[in-house]
């Protein structure tokens, strides 16, 4: 980028060539007018109202769905549903799978899929808690658990990414293999026993509350916000959309598609590690059975949120709604003493209805 000989690099505001010859417009006067117009729209677009308009407007169907479930909850369970305690319970449960779903949103927008998130979560939880059980607990600081979890999660993501981007293994297969082997490894390490955390510092830190809100919930809020910025405001996010939308065009535009793909899976692996830490904190245990079926819940949340499974389009806000819808639904069913089988059927229905609705809306917006 630095060694431009003939073109004026220092003055990017100047057009490179004499474009007056090309277009019909008077470049200078017209340009100024256009720049002003562009600046004006930019000003209009910024701010909270734009955020609300875009996120609520595009997700009207999701808001309605969530409201309907809430209304049902209030009618059937009354105060047991509409209490602050219950809301915090929902959010605390939603937080772990929510963090995974944010990472999953990036992978799916980037044209991939990851079936191994639950297994990576289990492996991270088991590996990091081996440092916190009776034998080693005394000599271990809890930050070591955090470090180990992130190394394991990021490492698994790296393996997934390398296999997919450079090994040319289909994402579905590569992550299916990771699903099997990571959970198997977790069982070997833990000898299929639940590992109870005996360090105090870890639980104390993660289970604090700030202004009455559990830290776990705040972590989810923070990750969602960071994810939104990453997707919508950074080079990384823009490249993710390009890579998922048309990998060949992205490659020919000079984007290193393989490297970007690896980064996406590493990002998701790190999200799994964070979710593992949150789950360990909530249950005070590490176990090879943690995170069962998280892959399905995460993918369902992303899809309900309107992200295209084929990649190239999707929103973080939609995913957050998807996570909330699934978790509120579970809560309402639990409060009404419905068994998990009924819940599963309802979840399936919700997924189908949400996707049909999203498709309808998407078609209308492009027509």
């Amino acid at each position: 980028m630095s060694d431009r000989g003939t073109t004026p690099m220092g003055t990017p505001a100047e057009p490179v060539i004499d474009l007056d010859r090309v277009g019909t417009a008077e470049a200078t006067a017209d340009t100024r007018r256009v720049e002003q117009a562009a600046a004006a729209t930019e000003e209009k677009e910024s701010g909270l109202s734009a955020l609300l308009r875009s996120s609520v407007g595009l997700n009207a169907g999701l808001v309605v769905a969530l409201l309907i479930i809430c209304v049902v909850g209030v009618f059937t369970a009354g105060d047991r549903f509409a209490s602050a305690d219950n809301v915090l319970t929902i959010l605390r449960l939603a937080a772990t799978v929510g963090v995974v779903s944010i990472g999953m949103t990036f992978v799916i927008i980037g044209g991939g899929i990851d079936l191994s998130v639950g297994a990576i979560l289990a492996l991270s939880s088991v590996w990091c808690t081996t440092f916190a059980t009776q034998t080693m607990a005394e000599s271990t600081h809890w930050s070591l658990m955090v470090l180990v979890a992130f190394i394991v999660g990021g490492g698994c993501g790296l393996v997934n990414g390398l296999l997919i981007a450079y090994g040319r293994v289909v994402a579905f297969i590569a992550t299916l293999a990771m699903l099997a082997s990571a959970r198997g490894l977790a069982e070997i390490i833990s000898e299929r026993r639940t590992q109870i955390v005996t360090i105090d510092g870890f639980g104390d830190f993660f289970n604090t509350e700030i202004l009455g809100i559990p830290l776990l919930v705040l972590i989810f809020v923070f990750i969602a916000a960071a994810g939104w910025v990453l997707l919508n405001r950074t080079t990384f996010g823009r490249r993710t959309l390009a890579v998922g939308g048309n990998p060949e065009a992205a490659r020919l535009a000079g984007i290193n598609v393989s490297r970007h793909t690896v980064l996406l899976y590493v990002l998701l692996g790190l999200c799994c590690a964070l979710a593992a830490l949150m789950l360990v904190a909530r249950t005070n245990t590490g176990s090879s059975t943690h995170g069962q079926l998280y892959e399905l819940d995460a993918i369902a949340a992303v899809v309900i949120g309107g992200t295209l499974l084929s990649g190239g389009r999707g929103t973080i806000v939609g995913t957050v709604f998807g996570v909330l819808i699934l978790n509120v639904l579970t809560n309402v069913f639990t409060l009404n003493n419905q068994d998990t089988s009924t819940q599963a059927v309802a979840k399936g229905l919700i997924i189908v209805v949400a996707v049909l609705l999203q498709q309808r809306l998407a078609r209308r917006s492009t027509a």
Partner: protein
Amino acid sequence: MTDHPITPRATPPTTPPTTVEAGPLLEMRGIVKRFPGVLALGGVDLDVRAGEVHCLLGQNGAGKSTLIKVLSASYQPDEGEILWEGRPVALPTPQSAMKLGISTIYQELDLVPGLSVAENIFLGHELSKGGMSQRSQTNRAAAALLDRLGHGEIPVSREVGRLSPAAQQIVSMARALSQDTRLLVLDEPSAVLDQGEVDNLFRVIRELTTQGVAVVYISHRLEEIRQIGDRITVLKDGSTVSTGLDARTTPTSELIRLMTGRSIEYVFPQRPAQARSFTEPVLDVRGLTLPGVFAGVDLTVHAGEIVGLAGLVGAGRSEIVETLYGARRASAGTVRVAGRTLRRGSVSSAVAAGVGLAPEERKSQGLLLDQAVYRNITVSSLRRFSRLGMLDRGGERRRAQVLTTSLDVRPHGVDRMVRLLSGGNQQKVVLARWLLRECRVLLLDEPTRGVDVGARSEIYTLVRALADSGVAVVVVSSEVEEVLGLADRVLVVREGRIVHEGPATDIDEARVLDLVMEGNAA
């Protein structure tokens, strides 16, 4: 072996097989086909007799492909009539054309690679009894068809994806025969074949014609046309310029004269008045080789120069450009940009050195169709708009707005989805991307494909303006006139080798066509 369709038809064709003098099997009169902004066919006449090989000749863009798509009912003509055995027919769907006995074998073979040879041959009209497929019967019928084509050695139960291209073509022909074909359309069948396979193909064609099947044969190789053809129809700019020419005796010079010269005149920008001596080589390619496609390509482009690559589709023009851009990995050779050697097979390395490519397939290779115009423009220059990874979207929009206004991209508005723009405006968006990147080498592969006449001139002017600002430009085009009109220097590529290099003003269209086509099959 008697109850499956090996012979053309249970009732013999009304025209006796060998009488070429009988009335035409197919007549097309005054066929007109319009696409938005383009008149693809402006009144084409064609008559094909039973038992003859009728060759369609014409440059790229002359309308050959559109015509055969009308014939196979993939397209509906806007005007004109089609007569079959003297009676007017309507062909509303591809199935209706098939029912008459018209089969088309396209350049891209439309076989299912995962199915067996026999299954492919009877795809869509499977031999079945009560819904159960008749496996052994299908295999026997397929073997009989292949035998008839002289290729009994092709195993009928093998997956088609594992056959050679030549064998796949035979399977396509067997499939055509399995449905009582009376008119077979072959679109550049020899492009994927070697000499021995071409001879075999011709033997099969001759056998078919003696059985009364009519063949419409499209090829750029004059040699082949002389060998296999009976009569020639020449198309130019979507119209028939001559028909019924004798394929063996019409002189080459006459055919080339008919194919060249255009009724639509494109306006090319003036070359700089005095002959300049280009002194500063920006792009320097030495001995570039991609096995099986091209070998030992040398190419030097100077700052401010436009170099054109002419040649047939499949001659290796696009591959040369894609390889030096790093989109394909060369097996040998070096590419240097302003003295810096590029890493082989690395697009990133080429882009970092200041090379830009406007690819041949604009929609699938060049654009993010579902994203806004400004995002398509800035995608290669994101670093310029980012600080610590955060994008300055206002800055992106403003720069994109300036560029699109200068290039007169219509409709205005950088937030519009690229999918909603016309071909010409999409191409301008791709050019704007590299304009923003301030690249020093610009590779343009078929820059005006799918672009209407008005926008073409704008793009030509833009390319010339870019060159004048010091960019080294390489233009690949199937349209000889475009290469000659736009470029300062012309390279002619044939079968992966550069067979001519010289100033564009020293060579004419007929000579280029001669170079491109001469002795291909020899």
